[in-house]
């Protein structure tokens, strides 16, 4: 199922199996995230998209399978190696997760202060550069409670890129944004990817927004990869999954209740009619 050549993949998932409270979240998932591209991961609610991000960052270990990030098998990494890897990954949380004790400037400076002994002047310059990139240099001294949702997400983005990561994970970056803020975040994702070449993984539901930035889309359902391709390919809806998911059809293979194993098999992406 992996679509791209392995050499180009920054993240390589093979046979990933994860059980969460007795239920299989992933059941032999395999996929590749190409280097330097924006890849969207989509799927019905509860298919473990956020869980996949947690596997990539090593916050959660899968029960089986390998998951390589830049050649390192994450589930086997020890604490030190994991922390070293995380310094090279930016993570944008759904609710921004700014530290409420600190103002905007200190939030962005936080990773630098923790991991690099920089002269104050240099640190200040780096932080202001990142804030300028997200258009919030003027808000440096505001507290997180004074920010709107869109602004908070941009600050979180500035924080995520403060170490110039090789990979950014966006967990639902469009949720709860008004159209203006949404466009600003879209523009940022695109800019960061095009100008800095940062590989991006995007977990989102808003296909219209995803379409504007993603180079490729992976559709996950029932613990497996059911479709992948460019947004345009998927939008054409060549399988039941894609038709339901991207075509906006109410009826389709998405399980109404707990997915039963054979149901998924019968209604898989192979094209059998529902």
């Amino acid at each position, binding site marked *: 199922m992996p679509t791209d050549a392995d050499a180009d993949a920054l993240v390589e998932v093979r046979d990933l199996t994860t059980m969460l409270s007795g239920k299989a979240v992933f059941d032999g998932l395999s996929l590749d995230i190409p280097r330097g591209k924006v890849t969207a991961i989509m799927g019905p609610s509860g298919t473990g998209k956020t869980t996949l991000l947690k596997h990539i*960052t090593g916050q959660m270990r899968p029960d089986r399978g390998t998951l390589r990030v830049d050649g390192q098998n994450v589930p086997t990494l020890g604490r030190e190696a994991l*922390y070293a890897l*995380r*310094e090279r990954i930016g*993570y944008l949380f759904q*609710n921004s997760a700014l530290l*409420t004790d600190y103002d905007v400037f200190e939030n962005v400076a936080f*990773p630098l202060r*923790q991991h690099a002994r920089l002269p104050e002047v240099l640190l200040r310059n780096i932080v202001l550069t990142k804030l300028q990139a997200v258009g919030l240099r003027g808000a440096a001294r505001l507290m997180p409670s004074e920010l709107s949702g869109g602004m908070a997400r941009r600050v*979180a983005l500035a924080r995520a890129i403060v170490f110039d990561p090789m990979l950014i994970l966006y967990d639902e970056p469009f949720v709860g944004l008004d159209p203006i803020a949404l466009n600003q975040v879209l523009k940022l994702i695109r800019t960061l990817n095009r100008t800095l070449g940062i590989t991006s993984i995007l977990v989102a539901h808003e296909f219209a927004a995803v379409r504007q930035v993603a180079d490729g889309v992976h559709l996950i359902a029932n613990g497996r990869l059911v479709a992948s391709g460019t947004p345009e390919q998927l939008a054409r809806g060549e399988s039941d999954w894609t038709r339901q998911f991207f075509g906006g059809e109410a009826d389709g293979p998405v399980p109404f209740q707990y997915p039963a194993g054979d149901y998924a098999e019968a209604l898989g992406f192979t094209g059998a009619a529902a």
Partner: protein
Amino acid sequence: MSADMKTKAPRGGMLVDGLAQIGACGLFLLALLGAIPRSLRHLREISRQVWFVGAMSLVIIMISGLFVGMVLALQLYYTLSIFGGTAALGTVVALSLYRELGPVITALLFAGRAGTAMTAEIGLMRATDQLAAMEMMAVDPIAFVATPRFLAGVIAMPLLANVFSMLGLLGAHLVGVTWLGVDNGTFWSNMTSNVDVWKDIVNGTWKALAFGVVVSLIAVFQGYTAPPTSEGVAYATTRTVVFASIVILALDFVMTAFLM
């Protein structure tokens, strides 16, 4: 982990649940202690927490100490006057404060003022993914969030207890000497000849230190393991007060029996 346990714990489950909590709390203490070397890099954070946890509790501690001292003087004066021993007022007040009331009341107030704040803060940090964000920024939340608060509580408690006792003494002096007319010289000289630094003041400080450990541990643990919902945090905050109060009073009895 306790969250899904709680949903189905009818009758016999309560005991197991309680034991599991105690065990988890003990393991958490080990994690806190193990993180001390790493959290010493965050000295600034520790000092910030001493400010929040200690200095911000100062006002309530001082006011309470003053009133407790005043009431103590009134009550003991009445009792002592039955035996004609009001000369001993200073001694009795000082011993009650140093050995018992200072550490215990300070710890109870500390649990209500600072303990709940710690629990709620950490619980909300969990609920708003701030702890996960730290993990993602390769910062250990135990070393950066939990241990500094724990240490701050341990540092602040004995200091607060001594401030409480001092204010209590002031209150007792106010009522006993200025109001009820106990002789000033008698008040102090009787006290100074009967209060022992090691047996009374230092042992009382040990107590306060132990309470600091217990209250801070419970508060940080409850916050750290609170279910990440507003209901979960509220429940955890309540539990901090309830558990901390019970453990303080029980530990007080044990320590009094063995230490003094």
